[in-house]
């Protein structure tokens, strides 16, 4: 057995290893030696061995085999061994390990040891890793120590009590009386511990808080003593007497004065005194001032004091020290809702902080700036914010963009300004905007009818410049498709007229279609736009026809489907083309109802269904139009839509208008992956299939689809369903009750199931209908629903 090397030699050996592999080798040897030593009963170097293991542990190597050694060492009568043993316990054991319970008894014994240093070890370890059980067990002991005459023990017992209260809330009651009496201590360590303990008790129990309000005068007195005292070498930090204690007292005062007039009055003078007299040249002083400001702003302070506090923050904003500027903005952010006008006064400085090279400061400045945007300063603020957007670090761009959109939406002085602003953001940071931006912008554009010409010209020019920013390109394509006639007319008051001819426009769209930078969604937009132009241009319709037919064999499923449908529109349904592709009506938008003071501006998270007001002829082409809208609104991931869902949507156009919205809402929830369908019933000409989609752990959406394979129509078609007892069932309105002959139209029935007990799902379905004057009724049982994802 190789002799174990003292700790420092081992460290040296590890450090001189030149490679990771060599280091591992040294450590393996050492651990083997340590293990061997642990097995030996009595050993002079026990504490050295454990210390070595702890070092190895800190390097990241496993050391759990040392846990029992810690337990043994803690029980040793030797102080040196206890010391390392307890250190080991704090490093290797936590309340989750079983071994931690084994030291409870040692701790209990050591808490009443004759040596204060042994007691201190026990207190420290308990406060570090004591479990709730251990805390409950030892709480009375701690309470006793709180009343000891030894300051060294008292201060440690106080913080140990804090830990106990954090673990076991109810024990707070036990410590309250002792805590109260500790406030009359002179020793700063004990006093500090007492204040921390009282703070913890008050935060957790309103009754205790009420009782400790009586201590406000006492706390004020202690604080005054600290502020007015002369230089004390023991406690001085940069001219402030014990800033640590001062800050804790201020925090306790904050809790006691919050929402309470009487307590707030009692501390008013003191706070004013601290605010005006504290030296603010060094961090220690500023720490105290900072805490004072936080307290003033959180209690029921006099208005004069409040103004003083905000002014201190204003001064902080001008401080050279970045740390100070940062915390000033953090505090101002907290009060921007309540003291809006006061904070507005410092808007200039805050906006300047947007240009600070430090990313932390920039972030704070951004949040605060967004909170300060108002109707009166929107134009100047937006200039700054747009400037910021073009130079800000990448991680802030998304936040900045969405904040700008929210601000623009609330305070736009004009629609044109609004559109310009959004376009600016899209050209600068198009890649970082949220997906809803595109439909939101489109909706906005449709409402600004006088600006259609202006908008389409601007977008067209932006498109010519740069086709890499997808959201911008998508909106541009949509506008060109929709307002292409205005683009070609050329005359527009708001913008310099430029002659645009049809081929140019088609070239632009084709460039987008063919570019490798365009995402599949974007290409979809471009193709649709091209198609729409077929009714808005006069000469180059054939070119459009050829583009559309080329994409009929495109490898992208989505594009191919569209192209095929548009082809069909040209060929079989040409008489409807004009009607289908005519101008869209103004889209209504469900307002998000943004509240005051919301800075990050949560934009519409879920895409709002669009109310299509025009009538829906129940044939295929409008369905593709509906599909278009769905893609526009719902398909933010670029997976192609499976053909089954388009069939579904086309069927639903035959139903009353309300259902269309339901369907759109429903499709928002479901991810667009193909769902497995199983045939459930095939008799008497009725083909019924079933598919499921998992909504959550316990809920499921089942869709039943029925079609008619006979030559005669089927009427009064209804479905009823039954499920096991614990399962809750909700049947939505069916899409209809009429199944026309030869399965041209299907009927769908959606059933929502909630299975909280997760029982095996079975369903019994009763089918009733009339065919050629004969009534049919049948029941079928589905024993297990298909695997749903």
């Amino acid at each position, binding site marked *: 057995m190789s002799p174990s090397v003292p700790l420092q030699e081992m460290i040296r050996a590890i450090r001189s290893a030149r490679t990771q592999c060599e280091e591992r080798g040294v450590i393996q040897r050492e651990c083997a030696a340590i293990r061997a030593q642990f097995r030996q009963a009595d050993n002079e170097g026990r504490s050295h061995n454990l210390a070595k293991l702890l070092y190895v542990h800190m390097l990241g190597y496993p050391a759990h085999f040392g846990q029992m050694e810690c337990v043994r060492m803690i029980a040793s009568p030797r102080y040196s061994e206890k010391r390392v043993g307890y250190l080991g316990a704090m490093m290797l054991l936590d309340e989750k390990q079983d071994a931690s319970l084994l030291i409870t008894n040692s701790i209990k014994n050591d808490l009443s040891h004759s040596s204060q240093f042994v007691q201190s070890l026990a207190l420290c370890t308990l406060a570090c890793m004591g479990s709730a059980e251990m805390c409950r067990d030892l709480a009375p002991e701690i309470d006793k120590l709180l009343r000891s005459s030894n300051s060294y023990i008292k201060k440690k017992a106080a913080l140990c009590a804090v830990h106990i209260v954090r673990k076991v809330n109810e024990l707070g009651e036990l410590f309250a009386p002792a805590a109260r009496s500790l406030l009359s201590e002179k020793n700063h360590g004990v006093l500090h511990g007492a204040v921390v303990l009282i703070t913890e008790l008050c935060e957790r129990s309103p009754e205790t808080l009420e009782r400790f309000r009586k201590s406000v005068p006492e706390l004020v007195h202690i604080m005054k003593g600290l502020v007015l005292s002369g230089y004390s070498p023991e406690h001085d930090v940069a001219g402030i007497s014990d800033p640590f204690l001062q800050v804790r007292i201020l925090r306790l005062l904050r809790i006691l004065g919050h929402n309470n007039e009487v307590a707030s009055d009692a501390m008013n003078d003191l706070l004013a005194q601290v605010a005006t007299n504290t030296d603010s040249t060094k961090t220690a002083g500023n720490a105290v001032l900072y805490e004072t400001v936080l307290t003033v702003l959180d209690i029921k302070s006099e208005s004069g004091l409040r103004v003083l506090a905000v002014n201190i923050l204003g001064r902080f904003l001008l401080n050279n020290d970045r*740390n100070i500027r940062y915390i000033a903005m953090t505090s101002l952010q907290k009060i921007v809702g309540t003291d809006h006008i006061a904070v507005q006064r410092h808007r200039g400085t805050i906006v300047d902080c947007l240009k600070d090279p430090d990313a932390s400061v920039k972030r704070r400045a951004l949040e605060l700036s967004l909170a300060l945007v108002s109707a009166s300063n929107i134009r100047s603020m937006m200039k700054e914010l747009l400037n910021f957007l073009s130079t800000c670090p990448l991680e802030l761009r998304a936040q900045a963009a969405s904040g700008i959109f929210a601000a623009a939406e609330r305070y736009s002085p004009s629609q044109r300004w609004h559109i310009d602003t959004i376009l600016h953001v899209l050209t600068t940071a198009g890649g970082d905007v949220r997906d809803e931006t595109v439909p939101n912008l489109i909706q906005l554009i449709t409402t600004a009818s006088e600006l259609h010409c202006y908008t389409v010209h601007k977008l067209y020019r932006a498109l010519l410049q740069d086709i890499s920013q997808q959201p911008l390109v998508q909106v541009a394509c949509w506008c060109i498709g929709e307002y292409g006639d205005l683009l070609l007319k050329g005359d527009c008051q708001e913008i310099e007229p430029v002659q645009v001819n049809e081929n140019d426009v088609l070239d632009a769209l084709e460039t987008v279609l063919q570019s490798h930078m365009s995402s599949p969604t974007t290409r979809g937009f471009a193709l649709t736009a091209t198609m729409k132009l077929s009714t808005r241009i006069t000469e180059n319709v054939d070119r459009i026809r050829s583009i559309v037919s080329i994409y009929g064999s495109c490898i992208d499923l989505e594009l191919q489907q569209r192209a095929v449908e548009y082809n069909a529109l040209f060929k079989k349904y040409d008489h409807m083309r004009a009607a289908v592709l005519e101008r869209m009506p103004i889209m209504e938008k469900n307002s998000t109802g943004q509240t005051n003071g919301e800075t990050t501006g949560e934009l519409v998270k879920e895409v709002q269904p669009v109310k299509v007001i025009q009538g829906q002829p129940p044939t295929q082409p409008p369905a593709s139009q509906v599909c278009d809208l769905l893609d526009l609104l719902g398909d933010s991931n670029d997976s192609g839509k499976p053909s089954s869902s388009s069939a579904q949507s086309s069927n639903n156009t035959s139903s009353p208008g309300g259902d269309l919205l339901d369907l759109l809402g429903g499709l928002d929830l479901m991810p667009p992956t193909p769902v497995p369908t199983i045939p459930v019933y095939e008799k008497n000409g009725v083909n019924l299939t079933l598919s499921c989609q998992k909504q959550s752990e316990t809920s499921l959406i089942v869709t039943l689809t029925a079609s008619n394979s006979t030559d005669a129509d089927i009427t009064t078609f209804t479905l009823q369903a039954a499920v096991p007892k614990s399962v809750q069932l909700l049947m939505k309105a069916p899409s209809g009750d009429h199944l026309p002959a030869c399965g041209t139209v299907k009927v769908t029935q959606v059933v929502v199931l909630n299975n909280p007990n997760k029982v095996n799902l079975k369903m019994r379905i009763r089918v009733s209908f009339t065919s050629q004057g004969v009534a049919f009724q049948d029941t079928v049982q589905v024993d297990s629903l298909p695997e749903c994802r």
Partner: protein
Amino acid sequence: MGGKMRFLLLFSRQGKLRLQKWFTPLTDREKKKVIRDMMMMVLARPPRTCNFLQWRDLKIVYKRYASLYFCTGLEDQDNELLTLEVLHRYVELLDKYFGNVCELDIIFNFEKAYFILDEFLMGGEILETSRMAVAGSLEEADTLQEVKDQTVYYSVPQY
């Protein structure tokens, strides 16, 4: 509830951990994640930037002293400026104890660094605000440890 430190880490510019003190129970895996994230974030900061960062729901305060970064995570209520003073105080205590402390002292005497920390902080809160008091207790405890013979102090039996 706010107001305490969640952890204190000391690490070198090369990403070597020199001290880790955890004030809340975390699994080994969680601890490793925190260490990784802290090192990544702090070591990436350019010089002369502010000492405060936001990470998850914690405020991170860090300060570089020679070759070592002192890094701590605070809960929402905590006073960041005061925490800078706390870090500074710890460095002062180390300096007083080791005499012109450097990273090597902390490497070769890591257990002492912990003992010093445990006389200054407890449960994530400040235990003693007086430098002299901390230094005094450490001296006494060290003397106790060095007493040869290892005189056994009989504990009062507990039943």
